[in-house]
Structure formats: structure tokens, C-alpha cells
């Protein structure tokens, strides 16, 4: 019986205003899952995940959350940023 082949893993750094983490992710993980997982690890409120976007550091375009790390060409060593998409202007 052959074991199913697991997707390769890469180590990436993720930073938000709450701090930073460095850990490995499967390349087939979607951006949304990566974001929520990182937010939880950074003790951020994951119920507010939709208020935050994920970006490659220094890039303006928000990463589409339904794409995988592999589909977006995210490679080992890249730094991702979780950033607020809008203020609570009252």
C-alpha cells in the first residue's frame, strides 16, 4: 500500500502589528487558511479575519484568499504581511 504523497512544505515569515511568526506551511494551503492560522498564533481575533488582508511584503496587491501558496508562486523565505484593510471610522 502506498502512502499518499504530502505536498512540499516551505518556511515563511508572517508579520502583523501583533508580532511575527516563522513556520512551515504546505504549498497546497490556501491563503485564507494560512492567514487565519497565523492570526490565531499571533493571538489576533480570528472572527475579524475578513478585516485583514495578506500581502507579500512591499507589494500593493492583496493576495487572493482562494489561491494556494503554490498557485501564487510563494517560495521559501518570502515574508508575508497581514494588514488591516480599513479603519473603524465612526
Amino acid at each position: 500500500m502506498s502512502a499518499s504523497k504530502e505536498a512540499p512544505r516551505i518556511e515563511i515569515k508572517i508579520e502583523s502589528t501583533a508580532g511575527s511568526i516563522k513556520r512551515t506551511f504546505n504549498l497546497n494551503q490556501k491563503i485564507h487558511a494560512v492567514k487565519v492560522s497565523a492570526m490565531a498564533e499571533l493571538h489576533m481575533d480570528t472572527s475579524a479575519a475578513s478585516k485583514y488582508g495578506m500581502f507579500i511584503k512591499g507589494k500593493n496587491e492583496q493576495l487572493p484568499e482562494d489561491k494556494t501558496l503554490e498557485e501564487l508562486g510563494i517560495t521559501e523565505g518570502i515574508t508575508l504581511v497581514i494588514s488591516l484593510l480599513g479603519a473603524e471610522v465612526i
Partner: protein
Amino acid sequence: MDTELSQQYFDEQVKRLHSLKDIQEHHGWVIDVEGFDIFVVIHPKKHPENIFTVRLRCNEFPKRAPSLQFVDSATKQDGAQYWPNIGPFQAAISRSQSQPQLCIPGIREFHEGCHASDASRPWSYERYPLAEILEAVQAEIDKAFP
């Protein structure tokens, strides 16, 4: 609260802000600290030619929230003419005849000004870290200059 204790709380927050190098680089912030004032050069991501300087005045920190004003980048003088005249910033200018009042939680103008009686969002330095306040301003600047 005495000045020494206030300085300790402030220094801790500034240290935390400085530690977020990737966030600073991502947004292009240039941070300078003078006394209890933090000056941050900030620009819309898609329009780096529009440069603004935010001043977070943290006197009496953490008892009082930081006061947020835009200032002249050279003289550090505050005034409505140094604010982005667009979106929520325009509303902040027209809200008050003395100083603009941006209505976002975490800043003095919100907690002691336009929402002084709003008990649902009390000021707390732990709830509103400096980096989050700056990121909220950055997000609104990015939206204002698409």
C-alpha cells in the same frame, strides 16, 4: 501617574513598534521619536508622491490615548492644512473648529472628543497598540488615494 512611569510604558510601546520591521517596510513608514511625540512619515501605497507626517502625541501615556494630528514634515507644526483633504480626514477637519478630530478608536480625539461618552470602546493601551492605530490610518489613506 508620574512622568517616569509614563515614560516606561511609552518606551515599551515604542520598542514594540520599532520591532515590527517588516510592517514598517511594507507600509514605507519612517518613524522618529522626540520626547513623547512619535512622528511617522506615511504615504498612500499607490501614490508615494503624496507624503504626510502623522504625529502621535503620547503625553500622559497610558492614562490618556495618543493624540493624532498631521503636521508639517519640516517644522512639525500641526494644522488642518497638513491633513489629507479627502475621505475621513476631510470629515475630521470639518468636525472641529480648533483641531481636526479623526474619529477612530485608539486616539485621544475619539475617546476624549467625538466619542467621549461612548462607554462601549474605552481607551486601553493594550487594546489599541500604536502600530494598530498607525495601520488604521494607513488603510484609510490607501483607500482615499486609490
